């Protein structure tokens, strides 16, 4: 089985992954600088608009973004319960102080988590690991040995999942599947490690036998373009960040975290 398989027909699938990752950086910086509801809400609206316009609306509402929608309110609730108290106290219970201030922080946190995580998840779903490796090595000039080694290791994750299932069945077959869950899981994890190292060793030999790791330069069969489209993608990312910040400043809700 393979992980992170990408349907090549997706919009943005052909864009250099480095650009897609870079496009999310400005907004993340802006949203980390300020703690307010307006900037993040504006960012979310922009994201929904942009992704829908370029045809990624399907991914936006797919089950794969579900963790974002679940995790964000959870983070927010913990801020409501335990955030630094200010303003009128709404509810008091032991270490829990729900105040007007902490509710504001909680809401702001929730929308910020969504605004940062949503584009990351959606964009990452359009990234093929091979293309990412090409981009990292050719555009960012990261060392080829490191990038390709990591890419090959990623392919082994699928085998590890299959191995784990088989190890589980094998433990039942050996008569020790009824009790001692924790100890068994630890032993099983160790077996998985041994199997993975062995697989990795064979893969390393196979890669070496095909000239991997030899001295000197290597060529790349798939060119990693970095052109107009990539700059537009990064530009849209910058615009979203700038617009969110501007609206927040104009409405007076800009609230730098250290002030």
């Amino acid at each position, binding site marked *: *089985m*393979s992980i992170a*398989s990408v349907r*090549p027909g997706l919009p943005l699938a052909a864009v250099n992954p480095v650009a897609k990752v870079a496009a999310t950086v400005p907004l993340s910086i802006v949203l980390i600088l300020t703690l307010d509801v307006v900037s993040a809400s504006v960012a979310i609206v922009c994201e929904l608009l942009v992704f829908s316009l370029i045809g990624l609306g399907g991914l936006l509402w797919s089950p794969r973004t579900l963790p974002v929608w679940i995790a964000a309110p959870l983070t927010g609730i913990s801020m409501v319960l335990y955030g630094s108290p200010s303003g009128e106290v709404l509810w008091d219970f032991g270490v829990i102080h729900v105040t007007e201030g902490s509710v504001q922080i909680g809401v702001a946190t929730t929308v910020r988590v969504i605004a940062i995580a949503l584009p990351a998840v959606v964009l990452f779903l359009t990234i*093929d*690991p*091979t293309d990412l490796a090409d981009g990292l090595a050719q555009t960012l000039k990261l060392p080829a040995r490191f990038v390709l080694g990591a*890419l*090959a290791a990623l*392919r082994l994750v*699928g*085998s590890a999942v299959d*191995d784990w*299932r*088989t*190890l589980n*069945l*094998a*433990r*039942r*077959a*050996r*008569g*020790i*599947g*009824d009790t001692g869950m924790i100890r068994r899981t630890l*032993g099983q994890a160790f*077996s998985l490690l*041994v*199997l993975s190292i*062995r*697989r990795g060793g*064979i*893969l390393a*030999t*196979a*890669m*070496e*036998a*095909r*000239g*991997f*790791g*030899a001295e*000197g*330069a*290597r*060529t*790349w*069969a*798939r*060119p990693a373009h970095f052109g107009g489209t990539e700059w537009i993608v990064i530009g849209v990312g910058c615009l979203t960040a700038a617009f969110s910040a501007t609206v927040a400043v104009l409405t007076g809700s800009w609230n730098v975290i250290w002030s």
Partner: protein
Amino acid sequence: MAGGESIVRTGASAITARGWGWRHAGRRAPAVQGLDLDIRAGERVLLLGASGAGKSTLLHGIAGVLGGDEDGESIGELLVDGRRPSAGRGRSGLVLQDPDAQVVMARVGDDVAFGLENLAVPRDDIWPRVRRALAAVGLDLPLEHSTAELSGGQRQRLALAGVLAMRPGLILLDEPTANLDPEGVRDVRDAVAAVADETGATLVVIEHRVSVWLPVVDRVVVLDRAGSGGVLADGAPAEVLASRRTELLDGGVWLPDELPWQPPAPAHGASALLTGAALSIGRTPSLPVREHIQLTADAGRILAIAGPNGVGKSTLALTMAGLLPPLGGTLEASDALAAGLRPQPSKWRSRDLLARIGTVFQNPEHQFLTGSVRAELEVGPRALKLSERERRERVDELLTALRLEHLAGANPFTLSGGEKRRLSVATAIATRPRLLVLDEPTFGQDATTWRELAKLLVGLRDDGVGIVAVTHDEAFVEAVADRRFDLGDALPAHASTPAGEGAA
């Protein structure tokens, strides 16, 4: 050749070994020592020898992938075209036994291109060479095809294409067909033969089953046992096979038309142990891989489950072993097998399986739990709460019967392939199950291990144990199994089809 249409490279490589040896780091005895060998450019050599004779070590040495000083110690001289093998990386192409572990990239085209990139071939030249290499091995797939979706035979042909695209002067194959079904074996063999004809590259192949490669090779080299140094026999295939028959048989080589052992007919009548009716099987509830299976496993009989790669044979074995629940239909144990429990094996407790159904997994390493062979054999009897005396008796008996006494203290993961297989069977029968389910018990084993396993299983059968074996091994189906069940639609469902070339 003209027009760049051929995958021919300028020249085939020659190999010279002078007093060569290699000792793996952490081992006392060298895997190979004192080897003198000359392989001329363009020769096609079948490399034979008993398990542990150092065949793989030699092949890896020639490929230049044994590693440096921290991996082991090299003695003497081993040269490819007059240079150290590691200096000429890319001049030789190595294909290993395990089809899964050699795929580097996620897409077929990228995987073939990988070696060319490493050799710094210009991009414009890469893709034409990738296409030609894929055509040469008969892998007619789009370049974007996912490598995860290939069968074992296709993966081996992909590995071969990856090697061919590099235009090596030397093709090195380490049991490239050991894990393939008979059809995959022929596909890969024919692809190699076609490529060797076209390129004239030197070819060195390791394989226990001689008949597979006899049509392709023009020389047979037999390595002597480890440490004894050198070559036992060397020459034209027919000559070597005739003059060294005894040594080769002792060394576990499968000679053509030679069955290692012919078992007797069953001693007792059969009675049903486990019956599947309209059975659906699968690893995930929503995805049945096969449906409407009717089959019965009998006590005192060996049932072979055959069929090509990917039809769900292993899934059927795991289901019959009570490890996976049936997805539909029924699978019921007879009263003799259930012995007081309800008839569905998948609902039994893990401990209740032990004395009823034993399972031997395809990869023995999946089922090893402890740090020594003796402890491994004690796991089952201990879970059954047998007395210490009884445990000791059973374990000692198995150690002797399966020639594992000298390894009682060894770590199971450090055993050889044949020893691991024997141990995994021993652990399953230590609890004396009424039914034994095995997944590919004899595959990739040399003739000696094959004979031992066949004798052991036939002995259990005659003691009244029911045996179910999933297998690609035509020799096993023909000679050892009492009944054959074909899970694939592609194969005829009646008993005994002609043996494949990988067998007998």
